[in-house]
């Protein structure tokens, strides 16, 4: 029977990681972080949390990268929340076109890349892929490599196709991949101009200016304090009157600088930066 993990033990883990790998988990949301630690203990079959603590104490960078991959949540879908993607197609992207310049898009916390491919498909069907510059970032190098590869289990494509239909895509999703050995191999043309970038939202700060930032279901793993910090990074990274999209059950209203944004679609949680 699993033993309940104490807060003091979690603190010990975050301290070791901070000291040895200069990585700060201290402001992750505790309820999910605790479960992720429990998960690591089960995957590696450690006898107790103390065994994991010992392992982290003498771990090399390679082990830490593996650990990081297991801690971060990589559950995503293409066109998740179809109505959100429809809103992008029908309202947000057309609005950005009025600026008459290249559209710069940042997928912050892109995970295995499903949303990046969704965006590329959306832009392709609007004949705008050449007019957009996409940066896709994640803290986990291993998942970035997977995203770049664009190979997904074929069984996932059923949900993806259903989402795409609800989004009212122009074709069948099959147009954009070929099936090989149980995998859907995405068309590389879609993402040939995507810049894949290792970036930690916790400490990475702003590195460019964007017209649209997507960070959906990422900040939910952070506590309020860290959400405030990340929102400042996004604020700094957006041109004025440009857009930030978060998950449909996330809200900026609990954040310190919420007043620098207005909500343009509350159902889909799309915000616009209105103050510098």
């Amino acid at each position: 029977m699993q033993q309940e993990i104490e807060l003091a033990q979690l603190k010990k883990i975050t301290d070791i990681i901070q000291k040895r790998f200069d990585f700060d988990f201290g402001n992750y949301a505790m309820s999910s972080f605790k479960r992720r630690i429990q998960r690591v203990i089960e995957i590696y079959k450690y006898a107790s949390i103390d065994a994991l603590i010992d392992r982290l104490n003498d771990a090399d960078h390679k082990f830490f990268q593996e650990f990081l991959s297991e801690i971060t949540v990589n559950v995503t879908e293409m066109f998740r929340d179809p109505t959100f993607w429809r809103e992008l197609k029908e309202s947000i992207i057309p609005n950005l076109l009025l600026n008459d310049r290249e559209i710069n898009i940042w997928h912050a916390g892109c995970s295995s890349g499903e949303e990046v491919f969704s965006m590329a498909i959306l832009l392709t069907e609007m004949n705008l892929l050449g007019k957009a510059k996409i940066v896709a970032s994640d803290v986990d190098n291993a998942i970035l490599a997977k995203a770049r590869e664009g190979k997904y289990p074929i069984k996932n494509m059923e949900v993806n196709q259903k989402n795409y239909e609800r989004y009212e895509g122009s074709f069948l999703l099959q147009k954009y991949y070929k099936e090989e050995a149980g995998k859907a191999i995405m068309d590389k043309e879609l993402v040939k101009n995507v810049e894949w970038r290792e970036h930690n939202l916790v400490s990475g700060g702003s590195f460019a200016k964007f017209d649209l930032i997507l960070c959906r279901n990422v900040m939910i793993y952070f506590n309020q304090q860290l959400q405030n910090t990340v929102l400042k990074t996004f604020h700094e990274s957006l041109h004025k009157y440009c857009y930030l999209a978060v998950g449909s059950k996330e809200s900026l209203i609990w954040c310190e600088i919420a007043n620098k944004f207005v909500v343009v679609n509350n159902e889909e949680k799309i915000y616009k930066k209105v103050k510098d």
Partner: protein
Amino acid sequence: MSASQKYEIDESLPYKAIAIGGSAGSFQVVTKILSSLPTDFELPIMMCLHRLRHVRNGFTEALNIKSTINIEEPTDKEPIKKGKIYLAPANYHLCVELGNTFALSTEELFNNSRPAIDYMIQTAAHNYRHKLIAILLSGANKDGALGMKAASEKGALTVVQDPAECLIDTMPTSALKITKINHTLSVDKIIDLLLYIDQKIKKKK
């Protein structure tokens, strides 16, 4: 049995929140409970009911038709407030963070479910301890049993719907198998218990 001993509860009334778990099949039962509460019900209620993962709208609206108190799907980091009823949104786990706020998560399915009842009740028990009332209704899988065990170990008041009354009783019987449950009650009695506690809290004020 005197009126004050109607149910075995903590007479110092430490209760701060109620967590209710059930499957999609508990819809009628939940509706019955929610239509029986006074509009000034004292405790916040959080509910995790198994529901279709890819249908975002409709379920809360359907529950709201009969509920005396408006039901909301909380956003991430929303403070848990008195007088409110919350429902776990589709395709998200609903958890409680220390300091009485909600946290949502898109982690893997648990018990083939997202939202998972276990996650909600475990985290609620961690935060509220003996101040929690945890209720598990009918359902077709064992989700919720680990949550009820955690609640019981933290000293929460634990209640399951009487398996004899359930269409599918896997949920309450799984909980009864692995932990001590304070009350096994019919839906009518669960409502009676909630009203009883509400009355007592009101009198104490």
